[in-house]
């Protein structure tokens, strides 16, 4: 079976094409482009990606409107069935607003938009998304966000840390995130949200390829499953 994926585009998404190109180049197979107003997703999806951007102009809260759009009902159902779901940047915000991931993403502690390469530590290399990395490996991936300050109450933070659900951690101060958390998995391990953009680091021409292993991990994990 060929790898089948979907990239969801909301009004205001702006990393959807980059995401689709990264998936095409690294994962191969068929990449469907799905519009936010679609009530249904293509059949037999292996992988759904929610891209970065500023869906609905960040009205109300970043990701809040997109999380209530028709297609997200279908994404939630797919995630519950076990389909692999990745949310990057605004996609991470949408996943928390939709309740698929714990916590919330608040305004950066330093108020300013942060747009630069940052060092990340791979905290958990046993997940579907990170098996291609070494445990504790330091990688460089760009961030570009205004609302990346991860917040959850202490009990939630303790729980997700204890369950190995912190996939990536910033190796430097970036946005004030609780415990420097950059990427979080759901309890089942099939949903990952992260603020850094792995799709912008898949080949040398982009300044590095540290994001490539994430997409390779997804494909390998699904073939093995």
């Amino acid at each position: 079976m060929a790898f089948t994926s979907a990239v969801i585009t909301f009004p205001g998404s702006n990393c959807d094409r980059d995401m689709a190109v990264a998936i095409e180049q690294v994962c191969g197979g068929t990449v469907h482009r799905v519009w936010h107003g679609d009530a249904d997703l293509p059949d037999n999806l292996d992988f759904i990606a929610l891209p970065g951007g500023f869906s609905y102009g960040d009205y109300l809260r970043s990701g809040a409107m997109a999380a209530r759009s028709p297609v997200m009902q279908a994404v939630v159902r797919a995630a519950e069935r076990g389909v692999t779901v990745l949310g990057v940047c605004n996609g991470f915000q949408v996943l928390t607003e939709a309740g698929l991931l714990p916590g919330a993403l608040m305004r950066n502690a330093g108020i300013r938009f942060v747009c630069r390469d940052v060092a990340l530590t791979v905290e958990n290399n046993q997940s579907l998304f990170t098996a291609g990395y070494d445990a504790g490996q330091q990688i460089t991936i760009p961030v570009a966000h205004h609302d990346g300050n991860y917040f959850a109450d202490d009990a939630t933070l303790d729980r997700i840390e204890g369950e190995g659900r912190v996939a990536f951690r910033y190796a430097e101060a970036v946005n004030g995130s609780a415990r420097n958390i950059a990427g979080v998995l759901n309890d089942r391990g099939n949903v990952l949200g992260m603020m850094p953009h792995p799709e912008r680091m898949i080949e040398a021409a982009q300044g590095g390829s540290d994001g490539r292993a994430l997409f390779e991990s997804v494909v390998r994990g699904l073939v093995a499953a």
Partner: protein
Amino acid sequence: MKVRVIVTLKNGVLDPQGRAIHHALEGLGFDGVNDVRAGRVIELDVADSTTDSALDEMCSKLLANMVIENYRIEKAA
């Protein structure tokens, strides 16, 4: 019926915007400001038959993010 929903950050949640406003007030020479918290006011015009539980649901499902925010509902007389 006019309804005001006031959304505020929960206690203990750091408010970078409130802090920036605080600094700006100090920069303008206003002394004695101890703390600033920024929030949001949403005004609704709803059918008179709208129940309190429906209003609560609007707030908890969309208007406020219950992970970080509280809300208060005020009905205009």
